[in-house]
């Protein structure tokens, strides 16, 4: 447990001190939301309709951004060898990586989103649903992404391409997330979409670490 915490903390520390980390994901997210009206034109109706989708697309892209730094540097500088030799099971190592990635991306984004909501003319009742959907959904995105990053470490010439290959797995998150917020905007009940979103997240959080650990063991060659 102590090792687990130490691992999460180290990744957060590096993320904060190095190129970007939490700030990077948050800035990227904010940027997409700020740029949207510039690109789409300032019509409140269009923005309001596009809002839920834009927020979720932005979240997807922002979590994608940091994935290359989740495991690649560890593989390059030998830390991965030490992780594999450590008493902590690799599944928990993967979970720690997921946690650190989420805390520096999805979590920050969820806190940031309500502040940015007015920029896209989001209805007030939809704002807590936006935050909730991001909080519930982004852990799943981090889990899928980390599993992809783990596969990436074993691919000499693959890297982020893999993350993009796994992005199809993120589509359900986008659909459920955006439809929860849209439902709230239309005064409908977002519960069902949120339940599906949570289920997807939970599945990803169970399967992701197992797949990531299997991929890390793969380096045994």
């Amino acid at each position, binding site marked *: 447990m102590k090792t687990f915490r130490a691992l999460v903390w180290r990744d957060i520390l590096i993320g904060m001190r190095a190129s970007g980390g939490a700030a990077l994901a948050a800035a990227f997210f904010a940027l997409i939301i700020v740029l949207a009206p510039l690109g789409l034109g300032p019509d409140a109706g269009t923005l309001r309709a596009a809002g839920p989708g834009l927020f979720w697309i932005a979240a997807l892209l922002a979590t994608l951004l940091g994935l290359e730094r989740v495991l690649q540097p560890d593989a*390059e500088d030998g830390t991965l060898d030490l992780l594999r030799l450590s*008493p*902590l099971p690799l599944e928990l190592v993967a979970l720690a990586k997921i946690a650190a990635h989420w805390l520096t991306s999805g979590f920050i984004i969820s806190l940031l989103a309500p502040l940015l909501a007015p920029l896209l003319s989001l209805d007030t009742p939809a704002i807590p649903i936006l935050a909730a959907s991001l909080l519930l959904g982004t852990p799943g995105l981090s889990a899928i992404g980390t599993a992809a990053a783990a596969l990436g470490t074993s691919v000499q010439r693959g890297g982020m391409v893999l993350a993009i290959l796994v992005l199809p797995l993120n589509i359900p998150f986008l659909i459920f997330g955006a439809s929860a917020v849209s439902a709230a905007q239309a005064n409908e009940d977002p519960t069902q979409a949120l339940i599906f979103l949570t289920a997807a997240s939970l599945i990803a959080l169970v399967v992701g670490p197992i797949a990531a650990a299997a991929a890390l063991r793969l380096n045994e060659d």
Partner: protein
Amino acid sequence: MRLIAEGLAAVRGERVVFQNINFDVASGQALVLHGPNGSGKTTLLRVIAGLLGMLAGRMRVIDKDGAVLTDEARDQSLHFVGHQDAIRPQLRVMETLQFHANLLGAPTKNVDAAIATWGLEPLAELSGGLLSAGQRRRVSLARLSLQRRPLWLLDEPLVALDTPTRARLNDICSKHLAQGGLIVAASHEPFLGDRRTMTLGYQE
């Protein structure tokens, strides 16, 4: 404790790097690997650490009661110090060692002792990215002092070290052997008075 290898062979990519390697290292003994560049010294050390699969052969670590260790138990009774030093530019030396202690499952208080053993006091607060080549190596060797473990696997440990530190490494290794430790090391220079050496073939 004993480390016994029989008929080891390993491939890297598409090439058989070495074949039919046999050795038997017991408590208090050191084995120094020599051989030309690319002959598979690093590969062999990684195979022993379980970081790389072997193509053929058998490797056993036997504890003092004669029982064969499981893979997990083996992982926890060895230190691996390779070419790569696991030092991140963003972390201070102190933080790096604390993290390594955590990974080993060692109490964090051992960090101070390790820092003292390797003379790292003046560097403790420096970021990893600012260290000189020899300073990095020292930080990475300091892992050895974070937790007592019987089997040390050292890949070219002398590289980039200055003369006093070489002497210090030599002392620390001799003491480790005297206390019943085992060392397998790769080196291009004489190391540990070359107690027992094995030369890997020319495979290029």
